């Protein structure tokens, strides 16, 4: 029997609130299906299931108190297991209700599983059904104008979560920092030509080239795409990049762009647009908060020249990009004005050394000199 637990959406998360179930006992689920909504300090998230099977039991009622990370919320029977719940068609029989209540509920098509019970031993009474009928009638007269909004991050809660994660990072991770300047002439010229040939809705932003180059560099220096777990680095099998997205109410979230090394630039632009939009709308999936092996933060829009970030544990590196600005650049004995980017690496000295970090930045630079190959 598989267990569906309150997930940890980061080293800083201690608990969460179950907002709603999207399934009921007896429902078939497959890996990746969203079965619950939860609320954390970072906002509301959809939570997927990680195994195929049949929902056996829902162990926690939605809307209650904060539930510690790791608490079993539901059990899922695999195809070969016999679910312990009563078969779906007999679900109602498990619900305690008086005969009169059942009769009235049936007459008014009231779903007993959705009625609050006030009787002895949790039984539904006739009065409970009458209340449910009144509520249903009221909803018919005044239908809700829109489904309830999923909770978004409160500025205070988000600040608390960031504070916890960053304090942990600075306490436990011995950071080292490296920086390099990258001539972006070729990359920007290539991007300009690409954008000239595409309608505005398909154009690329420079950060897309930076993300792709970072992903390809990580395939060559995989030690930086890793988690520090139990005193040793564990290299991540996929190149999932956490992309820092600033929220309009303040704070930031770093959801993951999946398999960035395998995406074309157009696919990456589309994936990034979708991710940023959903992050700001509070519509992220829980797995998107936990699957990044490294974080990229780009503050160039704000005119920042260099970014010296704090690594998000258990990751072992963070790449920062500043503003691409015209600066004097010497090459072949001549000085000219070029669009220059300062790229920085914050890395965990327990997992890597400066030599490796320097190789990463050098690889990144080389990749950006051949944008057509990204």
């Amino acid at each position: 029997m598989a267990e569906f637990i309150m997930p940890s959406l980061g080293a800083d998360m201690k608990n969460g609130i179950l907002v709603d179930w999207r399934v009921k006992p007896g429902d078939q689920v497959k890996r990746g299906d969203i079965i619950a909504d939860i609320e954390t300090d970072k906002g509301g998230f959809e939570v997927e299931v990680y195994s195929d099977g049949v929902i056996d039991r829902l162990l926690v009622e939605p809307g209650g108190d904060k539930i510690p990370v790791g608490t079993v919320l539901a059990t899922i029977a695999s195809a070969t297991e016999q679910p312990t719940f009563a078969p779906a068609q007999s679900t109602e029989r498990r619900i305690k209700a008086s005969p009169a209540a059942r009769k009235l509920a049936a007459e008014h098509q009231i779903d007993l599983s959705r009625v609050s019970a006030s009787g002895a031993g949790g039984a539904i009474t006739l009065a409970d059904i009458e209340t449910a009928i009144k509520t249903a009638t009221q909803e018919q007269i005044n239908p809700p104008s829109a489904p309830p909004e999923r909770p978004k991050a409160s500025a205070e809660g988000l600040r608390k979560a960031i504070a916890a994660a960053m304090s942990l990072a600075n306490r436990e991770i011995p950071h080292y920092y490296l920086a390099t300047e990258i001539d972006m002439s070729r990359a920007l010229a290539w991007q300009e030509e690409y954008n000239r040939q595409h309608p505005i809705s398909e154009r690329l932003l420079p950060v897309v080239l930076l993300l792709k180059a970072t992903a390809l560099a990580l395939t060559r220096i995989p030690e930086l795409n890793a988690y520090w777990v139990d005193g040793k680095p564990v290299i991540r099998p996929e190149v999932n990049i956490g992309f820092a997205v600033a929220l309009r109410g303040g704070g930031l979230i770093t959801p993951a762009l999946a398999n960035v090394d395998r995406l074309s630039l157009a696919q990456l632009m589309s994936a990034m647009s979708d991710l940023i939009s959903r992050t700001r709308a509070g519509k992220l999936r829980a797995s998107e908060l936990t699957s990044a092996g490294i974080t990229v933060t780009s503050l160039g829009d704000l005119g920042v020249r260099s970014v010296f970030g704090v690594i998000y544990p258990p990751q072992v590196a963070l790449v920062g990009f500043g503003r691409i600005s015209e600066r004097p650049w010497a090459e072949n004995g001549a000085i000219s004005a070029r669009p220059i980017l300062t790229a920085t690496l914050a890395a965990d000295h327990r997992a890597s050394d400066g030599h490796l970090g320097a190789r990463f930045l050098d690889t990144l630079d080389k990749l950006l000199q051949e944008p057509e190959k990204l």
Partner: protein
Amino acid sequence: MTEADIRTLIFEIIVQIAPEIDSADISATENLREELDIDSFDFLKLLIALSEQLSIEIPEQDYERLISLNDLVTYLKDRLSENKT
């Protein structure tokens, strides 16, 4: 389409991108991105929406001319006029 119509359309799109912004607070002459505190992604979203709703092309090389709200309104008005002729 008048300048006022264009301005209204811009505000309608801005409200979707930055819901907390009061259009009355937007200076017509200051840097729009700074006024709205939006990044390059949201600015591109604004231009995509304008391009689609007004059925005009906005070449990338023109982005640097679109600094303030007034710049944007004037630019869009000119582009719409070009489309007519």
